[in-house]
């Protein structure tokens, strides 16, 4: 996890996969608790958020302990972390919006578990990828490329095969899944990405640890507002009893610590890549759910749901897993980044920063003092496309006199 040790590409994939591993683990724990201990998703959800929130603040205080000058312990997880601090300005608004969106999806998830079986609903959360892809289509700078659409489709087909169980969804479940559940997830991802990418001011607080804790705070507040009116007096007293139950508290602390790490890695990855791609790679949790369920069922029979053992199901699961891996590999090897160095004609009375930034695929434009006048960093998915972009867009700008390209073959970055 050290900041500059790993090449950027491996770091991105590693963060996504780690996030997937941790989320597979905490989902398995949720299923175990609901199946064996307390079969009431509403109470469990309420307890999880509040105990999780309190413990996450403890975690944040631990991660704020300085280990070296200006370097708190949390820099191990995110090198931009500088201690627990409430973000201000726009990032705070994005975090509140993310918390509200997450409360919609979490709330509908609880409703869904009332009427249906959680194991058949959970993989459907991957539908969010389709929403994100569509959203990116309309957001000019992040238009998905053909390679991305193809590999993401491969991953989605894989997820479908891995999780296909033959059970059917009713109309209300289907509507809830299509609507608030996945829409909430999509907006959560979108607002977190906006907060993470916010760099307009110096010293802005938008490291993944602070984003996680504060969005969790707002999620818990909104969720409480939605849940409390649905509680019967009986449920309220049960909630109070379980709040002081040692096993429950310890269980939730472990569960929510896993969730904490899962989201911190997820948010870091969001700062490095497109939303749809981060979500596609974290789909690996659907595959990882299989060993977790198998080991869990071996230790506590029946506590982790039923796994079909016929040859057909296993062939589908194996093929599906293979497709998910293939999609991830293609996504990771097709990424290209290039520096374009630009000299302008003199006299040049025009500021080209905005013009250059508006070109698709341009990640960052710097006006510099030196031999060159502008340094443009481009991120795109094939060499031919970089060439096209250069010829068509940049050469058409009349103020430019000279262009040099340097393709990045390996990159290490502190994000």
């Amino acid at each position, binding site marked *: 996890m050290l900041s500059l040790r790993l090449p950027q590409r491996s770091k991105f994939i590693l963060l996504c996969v780690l996030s997937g591993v941790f989320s597979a683990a905490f989902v398995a724990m949720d299923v175990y608790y609901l199946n064996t201990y307390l079969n009431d998703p509403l109470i469990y959800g309420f307890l999880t958020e509040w105990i999780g929130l309190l413990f996450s603040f403890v975690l944040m205080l631990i991660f704020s302990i300085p280990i070296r000058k200006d370097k708190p312990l949390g820099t191990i997880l995110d090198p931009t972390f500088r201690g627990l601090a409430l973000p201000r300005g726009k990032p705070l608004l994005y975090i509140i919006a993310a918390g509200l969106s997450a409360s919609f999806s979490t709330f509908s998830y609880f409703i869904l578990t009332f009427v249906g079986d959680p194991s058949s609903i959970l993989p459907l959360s991957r539908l969010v990828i389709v929403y994100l892809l569509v959203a990116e289509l309309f957001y000019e700078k992040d238009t998905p490329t053909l390679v991305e659409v193809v590999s993401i489709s491969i991953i989605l087909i894989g997820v479908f095969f891995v999780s296909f169980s033959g059970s059917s969804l009713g109309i209300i479940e289907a509507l809830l899944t299509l609507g608030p559940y996945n829409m909430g997830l999509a907006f959560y991802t979108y607002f977190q990405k906006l907060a993470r990418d916010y760099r307009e001011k110096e010293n802005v607080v938008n490291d993944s640890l602070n984003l996680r804790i504060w969005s969790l705070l707002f999620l818990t507040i909104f969720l409480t507002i939605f849940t409390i009116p649905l509680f019967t007096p009986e449920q309220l007293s049960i909630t109070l009893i379980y709040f002081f139950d040692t096993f429950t508290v310890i269980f939730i602390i472990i569960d929510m610590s896993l969730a904490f790490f899962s989201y911190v890695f997820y948010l870091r990855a969001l700062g490095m890549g497109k939303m749809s791609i981060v979500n596609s790679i974290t789909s690996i949790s659907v595959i990882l759910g299989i060993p977790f369920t198998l080991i869990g069922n071996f230790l506590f029979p029946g506590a982790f749901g039923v796994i079909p053992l016929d040859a057909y199901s296993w062939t589908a699961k194996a093929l599906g897993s293979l497709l998910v891996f293939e999609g991830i590999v293609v996504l990771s090897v097709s990424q290209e980044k290039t520096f374009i160095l630009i000299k302008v004609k003199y006299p040049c009375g025009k500021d080209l920063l905005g013009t250059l930034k508006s070109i698709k695929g341009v990640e960052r434009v710097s006006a*510099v*003092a030196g031999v060159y006048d502008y340094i443009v960093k481009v991120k795109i998915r094939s060499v031919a496309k970089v060439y096209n972009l250069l010829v068509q867009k940049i050469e058409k700008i009349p103020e430019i006199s000279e262009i040099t390209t340097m393709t990045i073959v390996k990159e290490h970055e502190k994000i």
Partner: protein
Amino acid sequence: MKPIYAYIFIKVAIGQLENVLNRLKNIEEAESIAVTTGEYDIVLRIKVSSLEELYRVTIEKIHKIDGIVNTLTHIIEKEI
């Protein structure tokens, strides 16, 4: 105070790339290191608090690395 960002283009002697890269990774001020094809071999992005510190980092840390043939520094004036 507002930090200063700069790109430093580095030319490396043949066969020295891995060595130079490993030394650069230990520079605290480095924000990103990219190995590139084309005119230069490495593009280093650094964050410093002042021009004085930029001078110190380039003279004391970067120029002392064996295998670096040539560097070209561009200070970033504005960025979006």
